[in-house]
C-alpha cells in the first residue's frame, strides 16, 4: 500500500511537472530579457525591482537605466499593496533587491518589519528631510500633492473652496467625490490626525459622510467623474487631472491647491534587507534621484521632483510654494491603521 501511494504521488508530481513544462514553452523569452542581454556591460550584473508603479509610466525610465548602467533589470510589476504583502511573506527569501513604492505607507510598513536595509550614505542628501526616512531606510523620489479637482466649465473661481475642510460645507452636499480606500486618502487623513487631532478628524469625517459624497475606487475614476460632470469636486492627487487631460485633451478638469493644510504624499524607494545585488540597487536609487530621473517624472508622469532646486510640473505651482503641513512622512505610517479605522467607522469605506 505504502509503495503504491508513493508511486501515485510521483505520478502526480510528474503530471504537474509536465503541465508546468507545457505552460513554459511559449514564455521564457520576453522582450525585456532579450534586449538586456545584448546591452554592453558597464556596471553589469543583475537587479530585481519590485515596482508598485505602473509599467506604462516607469518602463521608459527603466530602459534608460538599463542602457546607461548595463545592468540586467528584472521588474515585477503589481500594485503597491500586493507587492508589500508579498515582500512581507517572502521575508528573508525575497528575490527582490529594490522596492519602488507608490506611497510612503508601504515603505514604513516594510521598515517596521525590518525588511528594508539602510540606503547608501548620502544618496538622498538632496531630498528634503521631510520626504525621507530619518534612519535612511527609504527615500521619497517624487511628490504627489493632494488637491481638489474641479470642472472649470461648471464652477467659477469665486465659488471654489479654499481648503479641504471646506468641502463639507452644505453647499457641496452630494457634489463631492472621493476614493476613501485609496492609500493616498488614508495617508491624507493620517496627516490631518497629526495636524488637527483625532477629535477634529472624527468630526470632519462625520461631516463628510453626512454631506453624502460619491465614493469611487480610485482617484482616476474620481477625476473622470469630475470631467463628466457627475460630481463637482474630487479629493485627489494633483497629477490625475493632468494625466486625464493628457489622455483626453478636451477634458475639463483642473486642480485647486489649498491655501492652507496642503499635503504632499510621495512615491519612494527602498533597498530590501539582504539584497543580493546591493551595488546595482544603490546605483538604481542614485539614478532615480539624478537630474535625469527627476526630470523624467516631472515631464512624463507630472509628479513633483523631490530633489531640491527643481521646478514643479508644467502649469502647477512649485513644491516650495505649496502651503504644506510640515510633518515628517515616517510619522504618518504609524497612524495609517488608526486612520483606516476612523474612515471605516465613519462609514466611508
Amino acid at each position: 500500500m505504502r509503495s503504491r501511494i508513493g508511486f501515485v504521488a510521483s505520478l502526480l508530481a510528474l503530471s504537474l511537472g509536465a503541465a508546468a513544462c507545457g505552460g513554459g514553452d511559449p514564455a521564457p523569452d520576453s522582450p525585456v530579457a532579450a534586449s538586456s542581454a545584448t546591452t554592453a556591460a558597464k556596471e553589469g550584473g543583475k537587479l530585481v525591482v519590485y515596482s508598485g508603479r505602473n509599467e506604462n509610466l516607469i518602463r521608459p525610465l527603466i530602459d534608460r537605466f538599463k542602457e546607461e548602467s548595463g545592468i540586467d533589470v528584472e521588474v515585477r510589476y503589481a500594485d503597491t499593496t500586493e507587492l508589500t504583502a508579498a515582500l512581507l511573506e517572502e521575508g528573508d527569501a525575497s528575490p527582490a533587491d529594490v522596492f519602488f513604492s507608490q506611497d510612503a505607507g508601504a515603505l514604513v510598513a516594510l521598515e517596521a518589519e525590518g525588511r528594508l536595509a539602510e540606503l547608501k550614505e548620502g544618496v538622498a542628501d538632496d531630498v528634503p528631510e521631510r520626504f525621507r526616512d530619518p534612519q535612511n531606510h527609504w527615500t521619497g523620489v517624487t511628490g504627489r500633492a493632494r488637491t481638489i479637482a474641479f470642472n472649470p466649465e461648471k464652477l467659477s473661481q469665486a465659488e471654489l473652496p479654499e481648503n479641504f475642510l471646506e468641502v463639507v460645507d452644505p453647499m457641496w452636499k452630494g457634489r463631492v467625490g472621493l476614493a476613501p480606500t485609496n492609500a493616498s486618502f488614508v495617508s491624507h487623513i493620517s496627516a490631518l490626525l497629526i495636524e488637527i487631532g483625532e477629535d477634529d478628524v472624527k468630526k470632519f469625517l462625520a461631516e463628510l459622510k453626512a454631506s453624502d459624497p460619491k465614493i469611487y475606487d480610485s482617484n482616476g475614476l474620481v477625476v473622470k467623474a469630475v470631467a463628466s460632470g457627475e460630481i463637482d469636486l474630487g479629493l485627489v492627487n494633483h497629477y490625475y487631472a493632468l494625466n486625464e487631460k493628457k489622455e483626453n485633451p478636451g477634458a475639463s478638469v483642473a486642480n485647486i491647491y489649498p491655501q492652507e493644510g496642503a499635503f504632499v504624499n510621495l512615491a519612494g524607494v527602498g533597498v530590501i534587507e539582504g539584497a543580493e545585488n546591493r551595488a546595482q540597487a544603490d546605483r538604481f536609487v542614485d539614478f532615480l534621484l539624478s537630474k535625469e530621473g527627476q526630470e523624467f517624472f516631472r515631464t512624463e508622469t507630472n509628479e513633483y521632483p523631490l530633489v531640491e532646486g527643481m521646478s514643479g510640473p508644467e502649469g502647477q505651482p512649485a513644491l516650495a510654494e505649496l502651503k504644506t503641513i510640515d510633518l515628517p512622512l515616517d510619522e504618518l505610517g504609524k497612524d495609517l491603521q488608526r486612520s483606516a479605522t476612523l474612515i471605516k467607522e465613519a462609514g466611508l469605506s
Partner: protein
Amino acid sequence: MSSRPARLTTSVAALVAGAMAMPLVYLVIRATEAKDPAGLVFSERVLELVWNTLRLAATVSAAAVIIGLGSAWVLERTDVPARRFLGVAAALPLAVPSYIAALALVSAFGPGGDLFVIPGLIGFWGAAGVLTLSTYPYVLLVTRAALSSSEPAVDDAAITLGLHRIRRFGRAQFPQVRGAVTASALLSALYVVSDFGAVTILRYGTLTRGIFLEYRSSFDRSAAAMISLVLVLFTLGLIVAERRARGPAASLRHSSARRHRRVALGRWRLLATAVVAAPALLGAGIPLMIAVSWLQKGARASSGNDVLPMAAATSAGLSMAAAVAAVVLCLPVAMLAARRSTWIVRLIEGGALAGYALPGLVVALSLVFLATRAAPFAYQTVGLVVAAYVIRFMPEALASARPSLASVDTSLTDASRTLGGSRWETAMRVTWPMVRGGLFAGGALVFLTSMKELPATLLLRPAGVDTLAIRVWTGASEGFYAQAAPAALLLLGVSALALLPMWRAGASAWRTANDG
C-alpha cells in the same frame, strides 16, 4: 473487486485535496498572530460583510441557475437555430474578467452612461447583475453536459404517462440534472465570494473586499487572515447547503444508445433564441463594444502592442496546462464523490474547494509564503503559476466531472469486464465516451477562468512573462483604456477560439456515445 482500487482512489483523492487546501495552512499560521481575534471576527463590520456576501451569493446563484439552465435546455433539447454559434456566444461571458465586465456596464449604463442610465446600478444590484452575467455560463456548461448524457428513456416514459411538458421537465428531466445544477450553482456562489473586481468597481462590501482593505489600508496580514477564515467558514456553510440540495447520489444511469428528441420550437423560436442570446449580449457583447470604443478613446497611442502575441501565447499555454492538470487531478476526487458520501469523502471534496472560494490575492500570498519556505526552486516559475491556477480553479472541473461520472452505468462497465475486457479497455471504450463531455466542459471552465486570472499571475510569474490579463490590467489600472482595449479584445478572441474545438470535441463525444 472494488476494495483495493477504492482505497487507492481515496488515498490519491486525499492527496489532491490536501494540496488544494494548502492555503488554509497559511491562513491558520497568520491568524494565530492576530491581536484581538474575537473582537475582529464578532465586530459589527464583519457581520455586515458576512450578511452582504450571503445576500449577493444567494441572489447571483439563483439568477445564474435560471439563466444558465434555461439556456442549456434551449441549446440541448430544442431545434433553436445557429446552435453552435449561440453555444459559444453564451459561454463567452465567462472569459470576461469581472472588473472589465463591471467597468463596461458602468460606462454603458452607469451615471453619465454611454447607452442609457439605469438608476441604482452602483451597489448591490449592479454587483449582482455583473456577477450573474459572469457566472451563469458555469450553470450552462455543466448542466448542458449533464443534459446531453442523461437518459432519454425516462423522458419517453414521462411522455407515455401523458405528463405535460412543464411537469415532464420537473419530474423526468430535472432530477437527472439536479446534481449538475447544484454543483454549478455552488460554483457561481463561490465565485461571488471570491470576486474582487466587480464588487470593487460597483462598491459593494463583501468579505473579499473587506480582506483586501485590511491589506490596502494597513498591511495587516493577520487581520486579513482572520477575515479569510471567516470566509472559509462561510463557504463551508454553502458547501453543506449544496450537499443537502444535491439529492441522492445518482440513481439514474446513462445506458441507452439513443439520442434525445429535440422539441420543435415553432413560433417560440424567436423567444428561445432571445433567452440564450440576451445574457450573452449583456455579458460579452457590451464589454466587447466598450472595448472597441476604448480603442478610439485617448490620445496616448496604444503602445506595447508588440508584446501582445507573446502574451496571448503565454495565456493560452498556461491556461491549457492548468485545464489539463485540473481535469486529471480532479478525477480521483470526482470518482469518489460520484459514488459515495461518507464523512471522509465530504472532507476531501470540501478541502478541494478551499482554493476556489478564497480571494485570489490570499491564495497567491499563501503560495508566496509556502513556496519561499518549502520549495524555493519553484518560486516565481511558470510551474507555480499553473499550480496556482489549479488550486484556484480545479473545483470547476470537479463540478463538471462529478455529475458526469455519477451518470456512468456500472452495469455496462461490469458487462465489459465480464466479457473479458481489460480494465484499460473498459475505461477507454465504455467509460470514457460517457464522461468525455463532462470532462471537456470542466476543462473549458478551468481554461477560461485561468485566462483572466490576475492576482496569482502577478505575484508568481517569472519576471517579464506577460499574460493578456496582465496587459489589460496594466492599461486599465491607470486609466489608459486605449491601451487596455487591444489586450481585452484579444483575451475575448482567444477564449472564443478555444471554446470552439472544446465544444466540438465535447459534442461529438456524446454523439458517438449516443450513436453507439
